[in-house]
């Protein structure tokens, strides 16, 4: 789960990291009031889970509170990468002496949280990694001891020559490390970490992603979820216990297991089709999940054929079959459906489907071929 910039800033503040002032507004009038409070010279920033906000016109400078209101009016309701802007962050513009980067991400290879810092801040760290990798300093932190003071200070000196600034940066790094474990973040970035003309070190912009597996035990963090910032089908899928990602194609896929779901999408492409989605009904066996899955798939007008690929393990074939039959009682599918069903309780499932007028295949390749053929009007 991604947090908005204003939410991430709030978390950093809570962990004692210096963050310049700023407030969030949902209406142009609120934006104006906040801007007045900050003396009028502010930046208005769209709060949306998409990169390239600036390029899309979602970040604007204002010289007066009235101008801030005009900018907020333009930005609120704007669509950036398919997401509607519901909130703007209003922050006073500040003079900046330098911009650096500080980030913590859990690294798969070392299996540790890795602290990354770079004196080249304010741009994407991926860009720095590609163009000037020597400007990135890394440290894999031993989680048994945490980020030690001397380690943080060494990285502080990688950013600043001045000992006061290096110490301030080290302190921020240690607090950021504590925040990562405190909120269950899979990624926490301060970009840019700035120095001001009076030599203070502050976190100007922040990005925090929370590991979804942490949300159950952290209701306060889970409450930060902004449903309006996500695609509606993905929200519906999550609420139904499904993993769903919308794609651009026409073959609606419904599969049990993430690996098999990806392999099914790949096979659709292999035979000349394009998958409309990734959908994993998960390991458990529940007809209602299948109904929800079909509802989400058929709500996409681009879907021209539905493809089920079920290899029963924990998932039982009869449960899936019952779900499909139940769905057709609740709503019309409108497009043809191809079902591949094998594994646990395969016979029961096939029988349930046969009675309801559906046929099922046992081979994955055959099913995908048939789905793509239906798409192209050549009924196999």
């Amino acid at each position, binding site marked *: 789960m991604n947090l908005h910039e204003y939410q991430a800033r709030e978390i950093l503040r809570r962990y004692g990291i210096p963050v310049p002032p700023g407030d969030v507004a949902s209406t142009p009038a609120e934006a104006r009031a906040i801007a007045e409070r900050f003396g009028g010279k502010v930046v208005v920033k769209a709060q949306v889970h998409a990169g390239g906000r600036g390029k899309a016109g979602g970040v604007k400078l204002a010289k007066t509170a009235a101008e801030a209101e005009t900018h907020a009016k333009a930005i609120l309701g704007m669509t950036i990468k398919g997401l509607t802007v519901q909130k703007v962050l209003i922050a006073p513009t500040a003079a900046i002496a330098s911009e650096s980067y500080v980030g913590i991400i*859990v690294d*798969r*290879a070392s*299996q*540790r*949280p890795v602290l990354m810092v770079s004196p080249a801040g304010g741009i994407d760290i*991926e860009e720095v*990694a590609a163009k000037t990798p020597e400007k990135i300093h890394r440290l894999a932190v*031993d*989680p*048994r001891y945490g980020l030690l003071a001397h380690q943080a200070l060494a990285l502080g000196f990688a950013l600043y020559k001045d000992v006061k600034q290096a110490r301030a940066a080290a302190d921020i790094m240690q607090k950021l490390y504590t925040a*990562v*474990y405190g909120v*269950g973040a*899979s990624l926490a970035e301060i970009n840019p970490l700035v120095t001001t003309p009076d030599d203070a070190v502050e976190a100007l912009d922040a990005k925090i992603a929370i*590991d*979804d*597996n*942490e949300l*159950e*035990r952290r209701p306060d963090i889970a409450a930060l979820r902004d449903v309006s910032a996500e695609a509606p089908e993905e929200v519906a899928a999550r609420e139904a216990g499904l*993993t769903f*990602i919308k*794609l651009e194609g026409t073959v609606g896929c419904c*599969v*049990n*297991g*993430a*690996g*098999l*779901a*990806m*392999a099914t*999408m*790949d*096979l*659709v*492409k*292999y035979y000349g089709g394009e*998958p409309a989605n*990734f959908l*994993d009904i998960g*390991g458990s066996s529940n007809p209602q999940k299948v109904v929800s899955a079909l509802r989400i798939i058929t709500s996409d007008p681009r879907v021209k054929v539905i493809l089920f690929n079920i*290899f*029963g*393990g*924990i*998932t039982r074939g009869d449960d899936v079959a019952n779900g499909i039959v139940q769905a057709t009682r609740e709503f019309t599918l409108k497009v043809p459906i191809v079902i591949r069903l*094998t*594994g*646990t309780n395969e016979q029961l499932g096939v029988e349930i489907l046969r009675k309801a007028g559906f046929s099922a295949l046992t081979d*994955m*390749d055959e099913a995908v071929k048939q789905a793509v053929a239906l798409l192209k009007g050549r009924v196999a």
Partner: protein
Amino acid sequence: MSVFIDNATRLVIQGITGRDGSFHAKQMMEYGTQVVAGVTPGKGGQRFENSVPVFNTVAEAVAATTANTSVIYVPAAVAASAIFEAADAGIRLVICITEGIPVLDMTRVLPFVRERGARLLGPNCPGLISPGKSKVGIIPGNICKPGKIGVVSRSGTLTYEIIHQLSTHGLGQSTCIGIGGDPLIGTNFIDCLTAFQADAETDAIVMIGEIGGTDEQQAAEYAQREVKKPIVGFIAGQTAPPGRRMGHAGAIISGSSGTAAEKMAAFEKAGISVMKRPADVVPLLQERM
């Protein structure tokens, strides 16, 4: 001989009285796995299915039954704790089926398990099976056949698909291992390739990876140097859009490392035959053996 489990495996099931634990306990017992104990705090003294003794703690189970392997079916909220407990009790091989353990918990679990000299398989994995001998986890026994192919995979049902292709074409398996789809796991591809290379009953290896991370690339380099047996590989997620989470926490493409194309190229460079689709596994193996 087989890999990681065999006839000497003495299994304790953590969460044996739960919904998933009890179901799979019965399946494993029917398959012939030596289930010597179960653990559910508060249910110590009971017997599961009138035979398997249940203990309050893993330490008690080990002391009473000399269990050497554990499998975990407890809910995600307590699964990290269950791994700590198993390793602390002297269990040599811990298999964690549970899905949904926070990654930060795993940063603390993994060094602990290694310090205790134990091996962790998973989490978020289907476990492993040596067809005809022993199975620990949830891989359906009926789709497997005893034979000479070693299978290692990051996926669950996709592994079943590949095993099914092998079995229906007469290619039995020595051991099938699901290493799990999470970003931080206890046993990786290289560990399994090493074991299969050393296993006299394995003639060829099938390796099933997916997008995200660089485990497959590192395994390919290792295989080129150290593995003399033929390997056939598959990467799921060729059509996955960059940067999107596809169900497995592990399947995130970040930057240039971790795409299917990159992994498939690494396989080819290392002399691993690359399947374009699951059905290619049989012809490619036949070509290589």
